């Protein structure tokens, strides 16, 4: 059997025919289902609207709560950090606990840490409060002039003169209070001299 003979047999096979009435009604049956489907879709959408509204309202409330709590906590932590490191009594107790050994008291995302010298040869001088933020995180410390400290992932030399001018220097930037930062532009640095500690 060749292809044309096969096609002839295939094409000669009729399919069962529906009645004329069936075909007359068929288009209307389809469009009725379309009406029904679109009505069902609208009904579903309508019935979903209050649920969707409640869901969106819930999400909005959660976001607002999260924002306010985060804001309050951030503010609260910043205040506590500043307050703790700038609290003369706390610094005094640290220095008394480790006489001539305290190089710095650091507060960062890991908490409060005391950096001690191997030898008890640290001179007593005016404490300096320093805060370094790099856009992602902030770290603050109390240290003394002449110290090489590690803060905010950087090794920094801290220097201060008798007039209260503070200079922070690292291999990547140079900063002093009253002058623009040279080097890492994204850093935000604050520094000030704290009240002298009398042990």
């Amino acid at each position, binding site marked *: 059997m060749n292809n044309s003979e*096969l096609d002839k047999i*295939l094409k000669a096979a009729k399919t*069962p025919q*529906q009645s004329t009435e069936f075909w007359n009604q068929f288009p*209307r049956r389809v469009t009725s289902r*379309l009406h029904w489907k679109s009505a069902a879709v609208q009904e579903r959408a309508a019935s979903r609207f209050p649920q969707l509204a409640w869901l969106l309202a819930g999400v909005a409330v959660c976001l607002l709560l999260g924002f306010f709590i985060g804001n309050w906590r951030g503010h609260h932590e910043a205040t506590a950090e500043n307050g703790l490191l700038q609290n003369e009594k706390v610094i005094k107790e640290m220095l008394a606990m480790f006489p001539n050994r305290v190089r710095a008291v650091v507060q960062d995302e890991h908490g409060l840490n005391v950096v001690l010298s191997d030898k008890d040869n640290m001179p007593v001088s005016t404490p300096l409060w320093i805060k370094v933020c790099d856009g992602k995180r902030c770290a603050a410390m109390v240290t003394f002039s002449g110290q090489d400290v590690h803060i905010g992932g950087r090794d920094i030399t801290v220097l201060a003169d008798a007039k209260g001018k503070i200079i922070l220097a690292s291999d990547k930037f140079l900063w002093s209070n009253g002058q623009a930062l040279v080097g890492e532009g994204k850093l935000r640095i604050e520094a000030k001299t704290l009240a002298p500690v009398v042990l």
Partner: protein
Amino acid sequence: MVELDEEKHWLEHSRQGDHAAFENLIRNYQTMIHSLTYRMTGSLADADDLSQETFIRAFQQLASFRGDSKFSSWLCRVAVNACLNWRQRERRRAEVHEQWAGDNFSSPVPEEGGELLDENARNVQAALNRLPAKQRAAIILTVYEEMNHAEAARALGCSEATVSWRVFAARTKLKRWLKPADRGMPGR
């Protein structure tokens, strides 16, 4: 056959949600789609359902018809896809039935309308039913809808070479099953 301008007019209105315009399109292609779905399923009841399903899907997907092929070809594609999905649903349903029916399960090839068909038609349909669904679709589109292989490839969403292979494989089997000595026993 509907004049092309008239068909364009109905298509345009159907796209805008005009059901009356779409009824005109249905009227022109309903027997073609019904024959195609019958040949794909071998069941009159399923052909009725799948024809309706085809036009409903077509209405919902009218925006995707860009007019770069004939509307009838695009409609055939929608119908064939509906039938192939139906085959998958049927297979899953049959598997479930088979699990429950055990050895008493019989092949789900309905014979509605059989009394209206002559022996040749029954034999041909039985042979078509035996083909894998994709080969059957390739034969139906190329023989009954008279599409060339490129058009059939677009309709089936495969390459022209795949269509050619499916048509060749299907023809080889159909010739064997429908040769005069075997006529009347295609279901073996």
